[in-house]
């Protein structure tokens, strides 16, 4: 039930609340920009009539500045002093947020305009919490608030010891929905849901500590997530035992002395038979289509078009669509069905190789073309397989069994129960693997790069220092360290690289120009990243986020000794974003600086760079 009402001007809103004695208030707004606007608009329109409070604010902030010089001359300074209102969101630096929190708890502010991030973590209550909408903004539009989000917000309403009652007010806004708010207020709190997952750091540390995959697995299976699985496992095992009982009793009753394995064997054979039957190609087109799926791959040359005369070298294949280069070097993209011929050699996708490749196909195309299968051949294969299965089904009963006909009947009758049994078994196996498989995949990737020995279940010397490197993407940093990349850098370039890695992928930190040297080292770093993610991708791990080049530009500038205000104005990024990014960069550098024994040179440099990054106001 949306009430589509335009948002009130912030001064009007505050005047209305004041009329009901509902101040001080925290007004939640969807974006940082709206918070800043609302605060300055309100400050312009209102003048706190109470001069003593204004003086008190001024004194308070002057006192604060002595400890925190970075808030001196902040662009919202007057808004606070004059209007007694402030905006509070992640775009501000921590010291500025702190002064606002302190002013609020000292009772010197009438309103704070805040994004929902305030609701989590910091604790500064007000008499009233104002919601201008029932939706939250996400990267892809709007979604309704959740019960716990609303509870976080209303948790700020009513100051203990200072208010008899707290209020939540649904104010006009384009996304307002009083019914939803009423429902969410009554909703029970969300359950805690485990987010347990495998990381390189956890795997290396636990394997090094316990010395076997089995022990690491045992730890992973103590997770809260696995507790849920464990309950499901108990139920599945129970229902599997029931099926087993049913089968055994039925066999006993009829006097057929066949083991249970025969019944299960039949289920499997019947299952395979059904799948084969389904999979049997029915037409020539289908046979051809499947063959193309198999043989068309990057590096191969294919003939396209009616006479398959136009040649294209395939560079990419995705969901049945093909991309590649024509002989004249132009790119081509077309559906796989248009391919009429495929040539057997697989060429490297380099410019000089591609030219030779086309030449070879032009010359020896006839002998190099792959032969497409005929329907009859494909059919024959499947038919043979079906015959073998049918024979196996007939021979399932051990030869010594008497009453063969009756027993055969029985095992066919038990087929559905056997199916239940097998389904439960498969599900049990899958569940048992669920928590462990992601660790196993990471173990394989780490072993490819030499950080652990997979067969011996041992962390190598390399792995031991990697285990100590507590950063977001340890493997990438580890590989960069091993490649010696960091040793060839200037200090501020190292800051740039680490910033590119630790920054949020999509955040914009301005378009500062990068030196050629920095670009070259970022490119080398990216190459290493590509090698790492290629292996990760092969092993079914999620792709890592991309490097943020704009963060690198800002960090090089900052580590190079630029002023805070200079970096802020040149990047035009929000102070809070820059602060967080530099602070995380500094932390990652300190981690590298800890590798004094394994990588003394890089560690030494990282320590120096960390100091250059972690200077005022980044602490």
């Amino acid at each position: 039930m949306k009430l589509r009402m335009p948002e009130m001007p912030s001064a009007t809103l505050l005047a209305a609340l004041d009329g009901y004695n509902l101040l001080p208030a925290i007004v939640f707004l969807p974006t940082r920009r709206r918070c800043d606007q609302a605060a300055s608009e309100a400050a312009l329109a209102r003048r706190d009539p109470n001069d003593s409070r204004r003086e008190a604010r001024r004194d308070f902030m002057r006192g604060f500045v002595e400890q925190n010089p970075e808030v001196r001359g902040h662009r919202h300074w007057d808004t606070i002093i004059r209007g007694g209102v402030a905006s509070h969101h992640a775009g501000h630096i921590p010291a500025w947020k702190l002064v606002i929190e302190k002013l609020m708890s000292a009772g010197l502010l009438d309103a704070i305009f805040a994004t929902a991030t305030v609701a989590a973590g910091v604790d500064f209550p007000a008499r009233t919490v104002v919601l201008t909408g029932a939706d939250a903004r996400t990267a892809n539009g709007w979604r309704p608030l959740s019960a716990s989000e609303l509870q976080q917000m209303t948790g700020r309403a009513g100051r203990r010891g200072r208010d008899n009652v707290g209020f939540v007010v649904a104010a006009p806004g384009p996304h307002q929905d009083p019914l939803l708010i009423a429902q969410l207020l009554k909703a029970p709190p969300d359950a805690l849901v485990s987010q347990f997952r495998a990381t390189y750091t956890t795997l290396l540390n636990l394997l090094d500590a316990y010395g076997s995959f089995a022990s690491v697995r045992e730890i992973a299976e103590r997770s809260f997530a696995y507790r849920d699985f464990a309950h499901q496992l108990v139920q599945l095992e129970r229902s599997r035992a029931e099926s087993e009982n049913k089968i055994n009793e039925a066999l006993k009753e009829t006097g057929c002395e066949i083991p249970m394995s025969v019944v299960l064997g039949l289920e499997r054979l019947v299952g395979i038979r059904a799948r084969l039957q389904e999979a049997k190609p029915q037409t020539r087109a289908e046979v051809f289509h499947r063959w193309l799926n198999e043989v068309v791959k990057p590096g191969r040359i294919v003939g396209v078009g009616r006479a398959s005369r136009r040649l294209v070298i395939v560079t990419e294949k995705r969901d049945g669509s093909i991309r590649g280069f024509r002989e004249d070097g132009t790119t081509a993209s077309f559906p796989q069905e248009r391919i009429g011929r495929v040539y057997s050699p697989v060429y490297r996708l380099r410019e000089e190789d591609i030219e030779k490749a086309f030449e070879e196909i032009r010359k020896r195309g006839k002998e190099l073309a792959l032969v497409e299968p005929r329907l009859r051949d494909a059919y024959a294969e499947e038919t043979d397989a079906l015959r073998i299965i049918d024979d196996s089904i007939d021979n399932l009963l051990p030869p010594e069994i008497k009453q063969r006909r009756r027993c055969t009947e029985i095992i066919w009758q038990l087929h559905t129960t056997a199916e239940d049994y097998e389904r439960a078994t498969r599900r049990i196996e899958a569940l048992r693997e669920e928590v462990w498989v992601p660790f196993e995949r990471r173990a394989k990737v780490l072993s490819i790069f030499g950080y652990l020995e997979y067969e011996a279940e041992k962390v190598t010397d390399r792995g031991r220092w990697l285990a100590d490197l507590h950063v977001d993407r340890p493997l990438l940093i580890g590989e960069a360290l091993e490649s010696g990349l960091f040793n060839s850098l200037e200090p501020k370039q190292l800051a740039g690289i680490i910033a590119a890695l630790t920054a949020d992928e999509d955040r914009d930190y301005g378009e500062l120009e990068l030196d050629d040297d920095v670009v070259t080292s970022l490119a080398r770093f990216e190459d290493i990243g590509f090698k790492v993610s290629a292996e990760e991708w092969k092993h079914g791990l999620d792709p890592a986020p991309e490097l943020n080049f704009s963060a690198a530009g800002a960090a090089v500038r900052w580590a190079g000794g630029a002023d805070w205000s200079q970096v802020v104005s040149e990047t035009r990024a929000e102070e809070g974003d820059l602060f967080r990014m530099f602070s995380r960069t500094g932390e990652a550098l300190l981690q590298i600086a800890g590798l004094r024994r394994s990588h003394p040179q890089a560690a030494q440099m990282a320590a120096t760079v960390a100091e250059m990054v972690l200077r005022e106001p980044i602490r």
Partner: protein
Amino acid sequence: MRRNSRKHWDKRKSRGGRSDKSDRKTNHHVANERLTRVVPHSHEVKRLLEGIGTPPSRPFKPDPFQVEALAALEYEDVLVTAPTGSGKTWIAREEIRRLLENGRRAWYTSPLKALTNSKYQEFIDEFGPQRVGILTGDRKENSDAPLIVGTTEIYRNQLFDSLRGGSEVTADLVVLDEAHYLADEDRGHVWEEAIILTPPRIRLLLLSATVGNAHEFALWLEEVRGVRCGVITGPVKRPVPLRAAVLLPDKRLLPLLNDAGKLNPQILNLAADERL
């Protein structure tokens, strides 16, 4: 129909714009009026706003749930779930005080650097700078102090180190503040690892927002650690009661709910008008 409602909305928008200007002109006036003129309230608004204001100051007296939690900590792990601002930190502080007085040690973890820094200051004020240290990704001070404040990640890393032959975590009590961060998509796994790897000899105190499955969570803690874990649920009622209202564009205030706790029918009517 759709077009109609669109028109309606546009009209409202322009009306809102006008009221903006007039407000700005008179705003000065409005603000000054606050003390002299009381907006005439309808009966139901009077009821909505009844009791608004500041309570007389009272000496602090701990809530029963706080006392109960302290008592339980004597012999078991404790999970406290309570809404924000109802006094969970008091429990941690008093237990830490008791330990420090007996020459014992504690680790206090929090999810955010800002929270860690402010807790550090708070504990310094409370226990003196010699007795408190801080460990975050970029700050390390007085790390041998009997009370360490730090991020959960750093605490987890110390557990890893001690498992791999480094120095033991010497705390007698570990407080996990904001323990519901366990459900955080990115970092939640760190909380689970910290819980699983904390030696059973160390007492755990988990402070969490209200969650739907506190007992299940506590059962898991018991299974994993082999130590009993009590669940202390904070006051079901909020420390300061909450009332809900809707503010309309004409500055009228309406209660959001009626006495039965259902949506106020007047608001339903308004929504129906909107659709016309």
